[in-house]
């Protein structure tokens, strides 16, 4: 049998085509659109930023809804939807005028009535919002673009309250008329991105399209403030639950961005010339341990002080956030935030902790070997590891520590219990916080049974905390912060375990990502993609 050259050519061509077929097909399905950014995010399970304070819900809110004010990169509130605002001489009436050209995604104009309804809805659930509602004589519109908040008594931090705590999303009046505990059924806002309902696949992917009608402010983007210019046509949130798969997709260029890459992959990411790590949420989070003030031994201040001296922050950070570039110690209850962080009454801090002193203080508290239950959320790796370390530290000084492992849902249910451990109660839980405003940061409350889980109580501290909303200047609040912190470390409302920031990983083709002062995610405007 003879083989002709033509047959060889034909066979070669066929084989080549067959071999290259997967690549061709793959190219057809790749995100090759230079104006589409694919981002690996946590699952978006709740769409209403007033109903839920979960990070992804808030980030969805940033994209879809606009806000009256927004904080800049220094944490200072700046007008956003508001064109100008004023306060009366008696400090009781605030008047806000909206910018021209604001429209919802359904084409209807944003009016003062929408803003009033949105504030009222937010005021049902947000701590600061509730204070505004309690202090308000009236919240009403003056005309289509002007609305007012009239107060019974002045409230010095009103503007701050509008940008802190739960995200004050401005919704259509008909959406904002729903109770705050009932989820809105539409995703119609007036923000720089439109939520693409048709492409929404809960648990898999969500698509945001550029809102071409959006009129950004003229100022440059700065934190969450300034001009919100959407520089990509589409942002696709992909939910990839397996972190190894997410990283492989980033390496292969199938996605452009991974919000929370695991720490063990940081070296691999940094060794890839196409990828980089970047900290966007500069505020970071503070890991803390909260003791149950209602049950022994932590109903005794000596036992709480013992915990303060026991903790070795470096050890906790090594366990929970092993890369030292992204974690540090923290001694101020206002965190390492440049506005309010201070060193008042922080003499307790000692590198490596002081277990001997802790042991002595437990003895002074009359501790006699009772079981101390630590709630351990096994599905939150950092906190789970920190809980195990804490249990070891306690056992090393002779304390009968017992871990109570469960998923976060189980922890959440048990932490509500105010009873003794024998009846399903608890002694210690570990969690994190990121706010520094003592008005709406649950960890910083100390009003007894109305406080956050653990129910710390200190009237002197609370008297100072209630002044926070009254003072007007930054200097006054800074002085107040020092006083509050001085008392906090005496009664030990909670113990800090360290401060950390979470870097994101993205391909170098992505630029313009905004760095923001908080820890609740980042905005998608201003980012752009360079093809090739």
């Amino acid at each position, binding site marked *: 049998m003879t083989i002709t050259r033509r047959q060889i050519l034909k066979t070669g061509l066929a084989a080549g085509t067959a071999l290259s077929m997967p690549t061709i097909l793959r190219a057809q399905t790749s995100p090759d659109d230079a104006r589409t950014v694919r981002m690996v995010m946590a699952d978006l399970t709740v769409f209403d930023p007033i109903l*839920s304070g979960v990070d992804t819900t808030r980030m969805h809110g940033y994209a879809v809804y606009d806000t009256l004010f927004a904080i800049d990169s220094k944490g200072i509130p700046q007008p956003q939807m508001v064109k100008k605002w004023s306060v009366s001489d008696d400090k009781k009436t605030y008047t806000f005028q909206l910018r021209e050209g604001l429209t919802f995604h359904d084409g209807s104009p944003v009016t003062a009535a929408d803003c009033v309804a949105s504030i009222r809805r937010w005021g049902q659930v947000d701590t600061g919002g509730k204070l505004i509602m309690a202090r308000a004589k009236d919240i009403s519109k003056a005309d289509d673009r002007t609305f007012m908040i009239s107060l019974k008594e002045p409230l010095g931090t009103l503007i701050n309250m509008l940008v802190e705590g739960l995200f004050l999303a401005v919704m259509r009046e008909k959406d904002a008329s729903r*109770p705050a505990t009932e989820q809105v059924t539409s995703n119609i806002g007036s923000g720089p991105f439109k939520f693409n309902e048709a492409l929404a696949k809960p648990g898999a992917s969500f698509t945001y399209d550029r809102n071409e009608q959006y009129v950004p402010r003229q100022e440059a983007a700065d934190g969450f403030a300034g001009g919100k210019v959407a520089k990509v046509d589409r942002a696709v949130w992909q939910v990839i639950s397996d972190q190894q798969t997410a990283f492989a997709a980033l390496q292969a260029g199938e996605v452009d961005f991974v919000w929370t890459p695991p720490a063990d992959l940081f070296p691999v990411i940094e060794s890839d010339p196409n990828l980089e790590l970047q900290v966007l949420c500069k505020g970071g989070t503070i890991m803390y341990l909260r003791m149950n003030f209602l049950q022994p031994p932590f109903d005794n201040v000596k036992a709480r002080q013992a915990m303060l001296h026991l903790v070795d922050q470096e050890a906790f950070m090594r366990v929970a956030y092993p890369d030292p570039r992204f974690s540090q110690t923290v001694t101020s209850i206002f965190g390492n935030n440049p506005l309010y962080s201070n060193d008042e009454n922080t003499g307790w801090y000692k590198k490596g902790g002081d277990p001997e002193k802790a042991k002595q203080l437990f003895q002074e508290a009359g501790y006699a070997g009772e079981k101390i239950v630590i709630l351990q959320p096994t*599905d939150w790796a950092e906190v789970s590891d920190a809980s195990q370390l804490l249990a070891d530290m306690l056992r090393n000084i002779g304390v009968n520590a017992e871990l109570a492992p469960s998923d976060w849902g189980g922890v*959440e249910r048990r932490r509500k219990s105010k009873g003794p451990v024998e009846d399903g109660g608890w002694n210690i839980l570990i969690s994190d916080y990121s706010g520094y405003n003592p008005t709406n940061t649950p960890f910083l409350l100390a009003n007894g049974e109305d406080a956050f889980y653990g129910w710390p109580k200190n009237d002197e501290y609370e008297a100072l905390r209630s002044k926070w909303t009254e003072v007007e200047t930054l200097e006054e609040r800074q002085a107040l912060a020092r006083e509050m912190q001085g008392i906090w470390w005496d009664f030990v409302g909670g113990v800090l375990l360290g401060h950390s920031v979470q870097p994101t990983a993205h391909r170098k083709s992505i630029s313009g990502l905004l760095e923001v002062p908080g820890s609740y995610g980042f905005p998608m405007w201003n980012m752009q993609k360079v093809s090739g």
Partner: protein
Amino acid sequence: MAAYILRRMVSTIAVMAMVGIFVFLLLRLAPSDPAAMIAGRDAPAEVIAGIREQLGLNDSLPVQFMRWVRDMLGGDFGISIFTGRPVVQLISQRLEPTLSLSILTMILSVSVGVSFGILAAWRTGGLIDRLLAAFSALGYSVPVFVIGYFLVYFFAIRTHWLPVQGYVPIGGGLGPWFVHLVLPTVALSLGYIAFIARVTRASMLEVLSEDYMRTAAAKGASSYAMLFHHALKNAGVPILTVVGISFAYMIGGVVLTETVFNIPGIGRLVVDAINNRDYPIIQSVLILTSGLYVLINLTVDLAYTLIDPRIRY
């Protein structure tokens, strides 16, 4: 036959009802609160309580159960507690990827597994048999995520021949749909190929030792005729049984593969729902999969009559 099918359908409903009661009680007794999950970690207790009230979670268990049963009987599978979307819509979005992966896996597993099994039985004790035994042991014992990462590394990251992850619906083009399913199908199939090959081999060996096979050989039947016309048909019942069980098991058991290759299927839907305590989704998916399981078993039972004329219902 009709009476048999009717009896089996009635028993299917009974099984689904029992699954429903069991799942409902198990979920409600689990120590967790979807309202707290919705509100977020820092939410005050009164906000969580408000959400609970709004969702009807403060009603007594019997009231919640009766409401659910009433809605189910009316064809209403409920609304997802979290997303606020109809559960039917969420399930239907996830059914196609899972069925696509399962069906492709079954096609590959059955064709390769049965072929390997026949080959091993035909050359029993020889090199091919031993090689196939080694392959079966490997395929059966290596976890799917190990195989998955291995495949991704070589065929997606190193060579860029195939995508790392994701799923493209069939409506988005047959090519992209197939390309996205190649690696997950191969990864998931290896275990099933091993299983089906072992069962086929054992079943074939049993049949090949029968007297009538010796008679066929004595009458000069070719190897092909002996293997495929005489032996395979008579060895078919146990093979069909494992294929049926494998398929039914696969519908609810592909979660690891779906996770490794980021395929938004039923398995991941139910795992996410369990993590969130999204009761309506969990209840509906488990009832659906239990119903599918029973129906696939019924189909297999009926298929026996086609293979073995001695079986009658």
